[in-house]
């Protein structure tokens, strides 16, 4: 995800950690693995991240194809335009999720010609055996994208797993409803297993699933503990790196490899802290990435921030885990039940905290928590124009944060996840410069 190849010779982006540096080859290898699996007739499932079915797929030895990842790769390699244009020519609106447009453009191209589009980034994306969506409040593309892809692959079956989570409301507590949420999720995950057994030549090994779920629990814990180390001053790892280390979290959850990766990261960060090794030698401003998916083609902007003395010890984006031991989980033996409880408890994690602060909600509480624990001076959010799931609400969160907590300096960046035509480097850097000036002014006032 960090390799950027262009005729004009883009230099590879510098990482603060060795761990992050391992990611590019990992992603490339995973994509190659998919293509090999396809050739050997193994089942491949188009999948969405954070859909609570990683463990199920892994336990059944089904190869996940993370279509969001592939679109991100196309974006990072600045080769998404031709797929976006292809989708547009199919009458998909350019205002839809650009991950989906990239994927739909790619799939319709591959299906029409019967082979990978020419020079497809990193070999391309193999035709799937099944496509797995999810129905929840996170995102519409999760139940629309693969349905739309079925127009080009009518023989590929689609399963949408209902994965709701209790909203934060004043008229009831999540504990009043958690039982029926969990019941539903368990039924949907059971349905997913049945679907996968029916459409692939795999059978679920329930003992194996319990093992995989255990690994993923421990990985959740390891990620949380590793990332917590970034509270240190100077900070040893920033959001720029986290946008790489998210790979094992989102695409390899449930594997020993993912656990080992974060164990190595934990050890590496501990070493850096012991040596007082920060991302940059002269850390002046500590920033929170308060929301928004990154512009995959412009991750070098994090280096630009670094060059101005700013680091990002914490981010909300792609940190979709909490320590499982803090989730107040009931003890259950059925791994599907365990997954369902983990899902509900994860989303309800800060409900109690939010109730203690009038006007707050779990998202705002999370921002406040990070600001305090990571000693944050300012908040940056990125509005990606094509993503209606993570971005509506960010402006309100920022405003509410200032209303119920304190008036903290903030910056709003605007572009997209994959569509580079939305990005203006000069404008972005100018905004960053102005923000740095603000941070400096606030700092000198504090004296």
């Amino acid at each position, binding site marked *: 995800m960090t390799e950027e190849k262009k005729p004009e010779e883009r230099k590879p982006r510098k990482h603060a950690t060795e761990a992050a540096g391992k990611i590019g080859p990992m992603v490339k290898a995973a994509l190659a693995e998919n293509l090999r699996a396809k050739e050997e007739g193994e089942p491949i499932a188009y999948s969405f991240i954070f859909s609570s079915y990683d463990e199920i797929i892994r336990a059944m030895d089904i190869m996940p194809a993370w279509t969001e990842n592939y679109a991100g790769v196309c974006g990072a390699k600045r080769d998404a335009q031709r797929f976006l244009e292809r989708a547009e020519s*199919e009458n998909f609106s350019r205002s839809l999720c650009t991950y989906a447009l990239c994927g739909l453009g790619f799939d319709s191209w591959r299906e029409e010609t019967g082979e990978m589009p020419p020079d497809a980034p990193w070999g391309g994306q193999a035709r799937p055996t099944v496509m797995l969506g999810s129905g929840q409040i996170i995102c519409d593309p999760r139940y629309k994208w693969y349905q739309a892809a079925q127009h080009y692959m009518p023989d590929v079956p689609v399963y949408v797993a209902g994965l709701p989570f209790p909203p934060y409301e004043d008229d009831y507590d999540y504990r009043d409803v958690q039982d029926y949420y969990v019941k539903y999720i368990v039924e949907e995950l059971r349905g997913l297993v049945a679907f996968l057994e029916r459409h692939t030549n795999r059978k679920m090994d329930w003992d194996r699933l319990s093992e995989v779920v255990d690994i993923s629990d421990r990985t959740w814990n390891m990620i949380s503990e590793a990332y917590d180390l970034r509270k240190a001053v100077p900070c040893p790892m920033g959001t720029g790196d986290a946008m790489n280390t998210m790979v094992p979290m989102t695409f390899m959850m449930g594997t020993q490899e993912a656990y080992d990766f974060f164990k190595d990261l934990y050890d590496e960060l501990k070493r850096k802290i012991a040596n007082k090794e920060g991302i940059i030698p002269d850390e002046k401003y500590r920033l929170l990435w308060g929301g928004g998916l990154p512009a995959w083609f412009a991750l070098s902007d994090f280096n630009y921030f670094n060059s101005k003395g700013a680091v990002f010890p914490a981010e909300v984006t792609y940190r979709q885990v909490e320590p499982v031991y803090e989730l107040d989980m009931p003890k259950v033996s059925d791994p599907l039940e365990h997954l369902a409880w983990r899902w509900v408890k994860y989303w309800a994690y800060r409900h109690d905290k939010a109730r203690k602060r009038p006007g707050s909600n779990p998202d705002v509480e999370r921002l406040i928590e990070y600001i305090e624990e990571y000693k944050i001076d300012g908040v940056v959010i990125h509005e990606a124009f094509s993503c209606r799931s993570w971005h509506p609400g960010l402006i309100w969160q920022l405003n509410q944060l200032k209303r119920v907590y304190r008036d903290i300096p903030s910056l709003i960046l605007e572009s997209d996840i994959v569509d*580079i*035509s939305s990005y203006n480097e000069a404008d972005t850097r100018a905004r960053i410069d102005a923000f740095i000036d603000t941070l400096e002014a606030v700092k000198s006032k504090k004296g």
Partner: protein
Amino acid sequence: MAALSQYFAGVDIGSTMTKVVIMNEAMMNSVIGPTGPEHRKLANRVMEEALAKAKLVFEDITYVVATGYGRINVPFADKQITEISCHARGVAHLLPEVRTVIDIGGQDSKGIKLKEGRVVDFVMNDKCAAGTGRFLEVTAEELGVSLEDMGRLSLEAENRVEISSTCTVFAAQEVVAKLSEGVALPDILAGLHEAIATRIYGMVRRLKIEREVALTGGGAKNIGLVKALEAKLGFPVLVPPEPLLTGAIGAALLGRDMVREAAEKGGTLVRSKRRLTEATLFT
């Protein structure tokens, strides 16, 4: 008046150019002029010019059809028909083997799909300058090149650059930056033509393009753009002899079609009661 001498007029008021065509079986006269803001006055004046050229008076015209952006400002027109139908009709007459028409105007561009000479589908871009003549106009100004020379010069490129901005305003900035970096002018021009061809191709692809493909409108006179589009399509395109006139020709022909159909059914078409001179009273 003998039926063979029935004259039909088509008035196409585009955003940049106004075109009038007067025709019958034997002849066709046309006038092309810049549009400007005052459509009403303009329509009258251009019509008078065309009549003079054809040595006719307004009463000689059997039916007048107005089309184009300013078609509601042709008070003496008997009917207004969209430029989509008119371009299609014009091309069907001039180049009957055409199935897909790409019209590139000053401020909009269109794709039209034909089947047996009739419109079956169309797409339009009138929201975004980047797929229209305007894109080239703006950037030509920035580069200090005339519109006429742009196309020809672009063909001299040795290393076409990529213009990544899809927005006309940002593209203009990008182009100036590249020029100051020392990039060769033809290379930049080729990049611009490539960018606009990409936008147009992307739009027309929604129609499932079928050959033969014809190019009309001002953009068809730009050899650089024609070549860039041909490269995208992978085959040559047809360009009618005077690409700016297809709309007006089509309008006149549609008028003729309507009159003939009415005659066959034993009726007559309702004509506008306005006279050419009446309209000029208000100018």
